[in-house]
């Protein structure tokens, strides 16, 4: 089906497949609107996407290419479709929401066979060789974001570079061979090489935006209410850690944690439990905090005679607010955290197996099931605005087709700067790090941990870190995928590299990692790292844009841990579109649906999903399957279905964490 076969009229056209847009799409489609959902990328979820390792490398390539070739708008072919009383508003054809991308690879690149073959020879290599190719970091620091990624983005380039470094590493190994015990030898064999990352790249699902689901957050409620939860599986975060006094410690947040904690004295245990119990229904105890509401939370904690230890845990890991946020916010955040505890396990958070990118796709699937039409690699060039009413009547898509709509919903990154009231943005700093072991060595390898890192220096930002094991289906066995997130004060690298080097062993040269016995060796070794900034438009409102009133801009993702911002926004936009309709009512059970051949509506479940698949294939051709998530909307969800999903319902509250590890 060619693109110009798209119907020429829709109720809503939605551009961008991030979480907010996907939820709006599902909600609209669910109540019967005709929805066209487009994304210029060849994958779903926009800045919420998750990539395989190889997919991420391609994404980096694309980013690089985009930096190099400035886009040109071409206005041709469709001018005749614009009538006199209409004007056009152009959209941006480039996505500039990502910046300062830097990539570092430290994994040696040698297959095991090669190592065995080469080792005798390499063992005698002169030391100078290692110095020469020691690290890429220095080289990269020289260039700006786009320049420095040039080499690293390309797997081939990396392979070459790393080959040398690995040789020298091998020389070290051979030197030390005689004193090694057999066990150590085995461990060495397991060392992850860059080739292995590539080979096992499909096992990765690397999130661009790192978030967790609060067990009683809006997103979980929505997933349950709308039955979208059936398309995904979840795992409870197994522990909450914090970086305290230079050490990684477990945060005692549940009753069982407090009981079992070895770091707290019994008196601290009592103080903590007492404070947490108070927070659970703090509104009932006005007298305790009424003099503090606007005073910093930290002052309140001090006033409650909590020890420095406890202040740290509560401020940074439980409330997760900054030192100067007012007490009332701290109390609310603590209360929310506590209310989420115990719903699905001993921590308040869930993580979707296969990565956060699953969630927008689940909503897209829901939208498609109710008749929404999907096109990837398909965008909108401009809006057609009726001069008199100032409303958007239609859009011109990338193929020059005019498609009418009564509402247009668009992700912020499609908006050109000249339509914005302000062009300075907040930014989120992100780092993605692949390591060789968990940050808390004693843990079993089934874990997903949230690590809160308070500001290292008073001026630096508080960093949130999520460490995923391979049981989260986001990285290959033997590796850990670590996401670092903070609101930017500088570039992502400036913000986050100090934390990475504090918590991990970043080889200054690839040889260093084989040094035995040094303290650095106890830390997880960084195999690969990526830094980038993402625009945070969450502060913007519709009035921040100079756009027709029936154009709704979806901002975000924001830098918070949960997704409440995006869900709130989705509901808000939905009610602007349809003030009287319910937002995502539960999907009916298949057996309750009346199949009525004459009306053709009953066939939605089979018919429409096929139709929508066909559209996408026509659009993307063979490329559709290149990327994970770039196929039809139902497919990613089905891939998780086949593992056997657990449906997120209220019944599960007492049961062990969702999504038993397959």
């Amino acid at each position, binding site marked *: 089906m060619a693109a110009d076969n798209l119907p020429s009229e829709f109720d809503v056209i939605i551009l961008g497949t991030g979480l907010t847009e996907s939820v709006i799409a599902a909600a609209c489609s669910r*109540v019967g*609107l005709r929805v066209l959902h487009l994304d210029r990328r060849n994958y779903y979820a926009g800045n919420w996407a998750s990539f395989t390792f190889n997919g991420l490398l391609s994404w980096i390539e694309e980013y690089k290419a985009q930096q190099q070739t400035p886009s040109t708008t071409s206005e041709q072919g469709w001018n005749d479709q614009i009538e006199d009383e209409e004007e056009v508003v152009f959209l941006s054809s480039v996505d500039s929401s990502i910046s300062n991308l830097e990539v570092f690879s430290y994994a040696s690149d040698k297959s095991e066979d090669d190592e065995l073959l080469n080792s005798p020879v390499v063992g005698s290599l002169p030391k100078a060789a290692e110095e020469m190719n020691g690290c890429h970091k220095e080289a990269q620091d020289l260039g700006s974001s786009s320049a420095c990624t040039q080499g690293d983005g390309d797997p081939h380039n990396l392979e070459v570079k790393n080959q040398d470094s690995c040789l020298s590493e091998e020389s070290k190994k051979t030197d030390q061979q005689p004193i090694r015990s057999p066990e150590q030898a085995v461990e060495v064999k397991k060392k992850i090489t860059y080739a292995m990352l590539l080979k096992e790249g499909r096992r990765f699902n690397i999130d661009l935006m790192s978030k967790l689901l609060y067990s009683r957050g809006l997103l979980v409620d929505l997933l349950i209410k709308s039955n979208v939860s059936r398309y995904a599986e979840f795992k409870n975060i197994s522990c909450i850690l914090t970086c305290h006094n230079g050490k990684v410690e477990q945060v005692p947040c549940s009753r069982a944690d407090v009981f079992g904690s070895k770091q707290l004295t019994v008196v601290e*245990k009592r103080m903590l*439990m007492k404070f947490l119990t108070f927070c659970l229904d703090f509104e009932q105890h006005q007298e305790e905090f009424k003099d503090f509401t606007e005073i910093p939370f930290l002052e309140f904690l001090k006033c409650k005679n909590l020890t420095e230890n406890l202040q740290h845990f509560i401020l940074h890991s439980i409330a997760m607010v900054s030192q100067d946020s007012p007490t009332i916010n701290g109390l609310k955040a603590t209360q929310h955290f506590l209310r989420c505890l115990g719903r699905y396990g001993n921590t308040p958070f869930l993580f979707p197996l296969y990565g956060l990118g699953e969630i927008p796709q689940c909503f897209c699937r829901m939208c498609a099931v109710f008749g929404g039409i999907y096109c990837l690699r398909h965008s909108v060039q401009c809006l057609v605005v009726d001069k008199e009413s100032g409303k958007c009547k239609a859009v011109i898509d990338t193929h020059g087709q005019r498609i009418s709509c009564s509402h247009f919903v668009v992700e912020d990154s499609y908006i050109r700067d000249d339509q914005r009231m302000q062009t300075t943005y907040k930014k989120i700093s992100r780092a993605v790090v692949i390591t060789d072991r968990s940050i808390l060595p004693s843990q079993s390898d089934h874990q997903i941990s949230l690590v809160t890192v308070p500001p290292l220096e008073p001026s630096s930002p508080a960093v949130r870190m999520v460490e995923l094991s391979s049981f989260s289906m986001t990285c290959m066995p033997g590796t850990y995928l670590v996401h670092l997130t903070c609101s930017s004060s500088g570039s992502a690298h400036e913000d986050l590299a100090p934390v990475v080097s504090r918590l991990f062993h970043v080889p200054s040269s690839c040889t260093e990692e084989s040094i035995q016995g040094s303290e650095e060796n106890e830390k997880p070794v960084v195999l690969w790292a990526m830094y980038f900034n993402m625009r945070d438009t969450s502060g913007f409102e519709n009035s921040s844009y100079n756009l027709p009133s029936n154009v709704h801009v979806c901002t975000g993702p924001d830098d918070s841990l949960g997704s409440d911002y995006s869900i709130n926004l989705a509901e808000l936009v939905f009610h602007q579109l349809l003030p009287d309709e319910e937002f995502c009512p539960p999907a009916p059970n298949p057996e309750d649906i009346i199949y*009525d051949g004459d009306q053709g509506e009953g066939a939605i479940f089979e018919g429409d999903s096929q139709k929508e698949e066909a559209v996408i294939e026509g659009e993307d051709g063979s490329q559709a399957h290149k990327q994970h998530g770039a196929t039809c909307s139902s497919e990613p969800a089905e891939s998780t279905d086949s593992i056997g999903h657990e449906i997120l319902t209220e019944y599960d509250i007492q049961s062990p964490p969702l999504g038993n590890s397959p």
Partner: protein
Amino acid sequence: MHGRVKVKSTAQQEEEKRKEREKKLKVYLTVRDAIFKKRSNSELDEEALQLTQQLLASNPDFATLWNYRREIFLHLETVKEEEEMQKLYEAELLFIEACLKVNPKSYGSWHHRGWVSYRLPRPDWKRELVLCDRCLSLDDRNFHCWDYRRLVVKVSGVSVEQELQFTDRLIGSNFSNYSSWHYRSTLLPLLHPQPASDPAPACQKHTHTPTVPTASPQTHGHRVCEEQLLKEYELVQNAVFTDPNDQSAWFYYRWLLGRAEREEVISCVYVSREGERVAVAFSKPVNVVSLMLVLDGQPQQQVEWRSVHPRFRHSPVWLCELPPSSISDINNEHNLTVHWMEKHTQRDCALYTGRTESWCRDSATDQELFRSELSVEKTSVLQSELQSCTQLLELEPQNKWCLLTIILLMRALDPLGHEKETLAHFQTLKEVDPMRSSYYSDLCSKFLIENTILKMEYAEVRVFSLSDKNLSTLCHLDQLLLVTHINLCSNQLMKLPPQFAMLHCLEVLEADDNAIENLEGLYHLPNLEEVSLKNNQISKISDLSPLATCPKLTRLDLRGNPVTKTADIEAELAKLLPSLTDLLL
């Protein structure tokens, strides 16, 4: 709007559901009748197995059907090969598992599982343990599963260490769990028993011969070696500081602090020359059958032992009359020995010339009688426990468990020294836990009586005085065997219980200003001369009848009692108590 999915209306859905249910019920009843018919025809075949399975799958609490299945299996065992039975029973276990998913607390299913596991030719106890663990991880308080688990552990010989680790794990995940704590209390004495010789500090572990936990602490010596005890105290402290309102940890704490059992001994022998009577007190109530009294080397076979009150078959005090004139001559010296045959123990008592009475005993102070309620001997341990509880109390001044534990620890350490604080804590307890204020009053009375006994013994007098202390109950009366004067004025006593008859030497009783309405305990007190019961609640002449058994009673003060309003009171009393010379009404 277009494209809306049509959904059946709720009424339609309800109707369908109702029909569905009716259909199910019909099938259920038919199958049930078929089963009962087969059973009454004694058909023990596999068809019956299938039918019962069908019903039990949806209703696993149908006990009759499980019984029927057992009958069938027992029959099949006689006709089938072992291998076939193994398969059948294994299938049965799978089926029960499904039933447990329907109702994890089905008595029938768990019981049947135990039965099948025993019948299984080659049981797989490991799998059963795994099943229990899974069940307990879903509901750690499912006592059916705990019971079954204990059975599995017993027959499969899981080591005590492993079981202790198991309780560690469960307590770690949720310490509000009596089952885990209790299980721990049965395991610890087996794994870390207190060394036989008391002062040895080291822990002796049974690492080489894993014992199987079978006995409960009631039947075993249940002391735990000190090293382990200290670890347990720490564990409990973590629990009570984390959640001081959770009683399971406090109960375990009480168990750890112990409840020492006193040795069974004869604690006192008293002989009265005038009454020609011997009273024997024991360390705890006994039912005496084999006491042998030897007087001056002559076994007295014919004496009859009686308890102080006919209500008691078990009593800590027993009496016997000596043959007339056997000791009445004040110029003679006599030696008595009481042998307690069962316990191979005895006590001597010498009645010297010129003495009218004599006794030989262990005093309460010698025995540290009232401290022994907590078995931890080490003062330093108790002291540090008291410290941490006090610390907790500072944080939680209203916590009843903490208050009560502090009281117990104080008593174990120094009952007299801490008396004032103890009383203050009792006051707080009554305020924060008014539902149990009577319990606290009784407990407080008990401690006050203990303290008064101690004070009396230090002073070496036979006068017991405890007035104006809000006493609500009387106890430890066996310790007052030798008391001649007792003052219980201005308390809240409502009766003088039968135990009061143990005050065998009592001459003067003052119990004014109480609420006494019952004098049952003033029974056969041979020396009682004066009774003052002003302002009490004695209302009927018949309430005074026990006094008739006290031969020496001459003075009785009943002023301020309802009974004084009775018509003809003086005449009635003269009839009832002819020995009275001094009656105040």
